[in-house]
C-alpha cells in the first residue's frame, strides 16, 4: 500500500504522476476528541508502529482506475494508492495519473484492536460519497482539485457535498511552498452520482 507522498519539490513529479492540490473540509469541522483511536489491543496511547499519524485528523482516499466504488481489501496491502491529506489544510500530493478516481474515502472515528483472529480491528467510520472523478489528463503536471466541503450530521453521515473553487488561495500557498509560481490546471473534482458511472 502506498500512501501518496506530500510533494515538497516539483522534481518529485514525473510523466506518470501529477501534483494534486486541494483541500478537504467538514462542516462541522472534525474535533480531536471525536476520534478515539486505539492502535493495539492494550488500548491507551500505545502506538508502537507509529500508525496513528495516518488517522488522527486525516482522511484516507483509496484511488482507482475506474469510477466504481470499492471496499479496501487485504489484497490492497501491496497495490493500493491512498491519498492521506490532513483535514482543513491545503494538500500537495503526488498522485498517479493512472488512478484518476477516488473509489473509497473514510475517516476512522473510532478504532479498537482486539485479539480476535478474523476481526482484529473494530472501526466506526465517517465515509464520503464515492466515486469521485479527479479529471486527470495525460499532459497534466499540476492540477487544482478544489475545496471539498462535506456537510455531516452526528451519525457520521455526509448530507451535502460542495466542491468549491479557491484556486487563487491555493496558488498563493503553492508559491510559498515551492518558491515559484506553479501553473495548475483547474480540474474541480466531481462526485459521480450512484448508478451513473
Amino acid at each position, binding site marked *: 500500500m502506498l500512501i501518496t507522498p506530500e510533494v515538497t519539490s516539483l522534481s518529485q513529479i514525473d510523466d506518470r504522476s501529477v501534483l494534486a492540490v486541494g483541500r478537504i473540509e467538514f462542516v462541522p469541522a472534525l474535533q480531536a476528541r471525536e*476520534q478515539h483511536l486505539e492502535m493495539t489491543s492494550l488500548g491507551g496511547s500505545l502506538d508502537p508502529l507509529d500508525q496513528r499519524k495516518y488517522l488522527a485528523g486525516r482522511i484516507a482516499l483509496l484511488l482507482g482506475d475506474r469510477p466504481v466504488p470499492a471496499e479496501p481489501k487485504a489484497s490492497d496491502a501491496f497495490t493500493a494508492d491512498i491519498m492521506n491529506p490532513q483535514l482543513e489544510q491545503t494538500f500537495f500530493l503526488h498522485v498517479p495519473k493512472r488512478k484518476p478516481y477516488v473509489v473509497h474515502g*473514510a475517516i476512522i472515528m473510532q478504532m479498537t484492536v482486539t485479539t480476535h483472529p478474523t476481526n482484529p480491528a473494530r472501526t466506526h467510520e*465517517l465515509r464520503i460519497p464515492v466515486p469521485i472523478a479527479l479529471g486527470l489528463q495525460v499532459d497534466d503536471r499540476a492540477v487544482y482539485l478544489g475545496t471539498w466541503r462535506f456537510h455531516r450530521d452526528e451519525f457520521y453521515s455526509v448530507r451535502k457535498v460542495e466542491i468549491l473553487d479557491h484556486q487563487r488561495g491555493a496558488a498563493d500557498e503553492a508559491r510559498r511552498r515551492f518558491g515559484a509560481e506553479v501553473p495548475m490546471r483547474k480540474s474541480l473534482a466531481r462526485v459521480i452520482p450512484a448508478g451513473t458511472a
Partner: protein
Amino acid sequence: MRTPTRRQVVSFAAASLAASALPGCAGPGRPDPDDPTRSLVFGYIDMSGAPTPVDWVSLRCYTCADPRSHYQISIKDGLILHPAIQPGSYQIDVFGGSNSLGIFSGAEHRYNFGTTQRNDSALRIDRPGAYFLGAWRYVAQSGRAFSMQPLTTQSEKDLLARVVASMRDDQDLRRYGRGLVLAQQRLAQLR
C-alpha cells in the same frame, strides 16, 4: 420500500464458560429511575432466521463527550427496552447473541447493524418521551452477509403495549415508574 442494506456478521467465536446473563444495561451514566430528563427507548428484532438469537444490542451515543459511550441493552423475546436513556443522538451499531446451553456458552455472534453512517435505527432524543427504534427481521444472505428488513407485523403500538405489560410485570423494570408513564402517554397518542 427502501432496499435493506447488506450487512456482515462481524465475528463468530467460541466462548468459554459464560457469566450468568444479567438484566439491565450499562451506558453513559447509571440509570436514575427518577431523572426527569431521561427517555424510554424500545424496538424489536426478529432473529428467527439467524444463527443465534440476539441477547443484546449496543445503542451508541453519537453526541456524548466520550465517543465510545453506548448502552448495552439486554433483549427479551426480541424486545429491546431501556426505560431511562439520557438525551442525545443514538443508533444501534452492533448487536449479538450466543447459542448458550444452560451455564455453558456456545458460539458468540456479533452483528454489524451499521457503523459507517446513519442507519434505520437513528434517534435524536431532545425531550423526554418514548422513542421507537424500529422493528426488523434478520434475513440471511450469501456467506456472512445479512440484511435487516423492516418488519411491518410489529407496529410501534403493538410493541408499546408489550412494553407497558413488561414494565408492570418485570421486577427490575417496575421501579422505572417515569418510564412507564412515558410509555403509557405515547400509547395513548397512538390509539
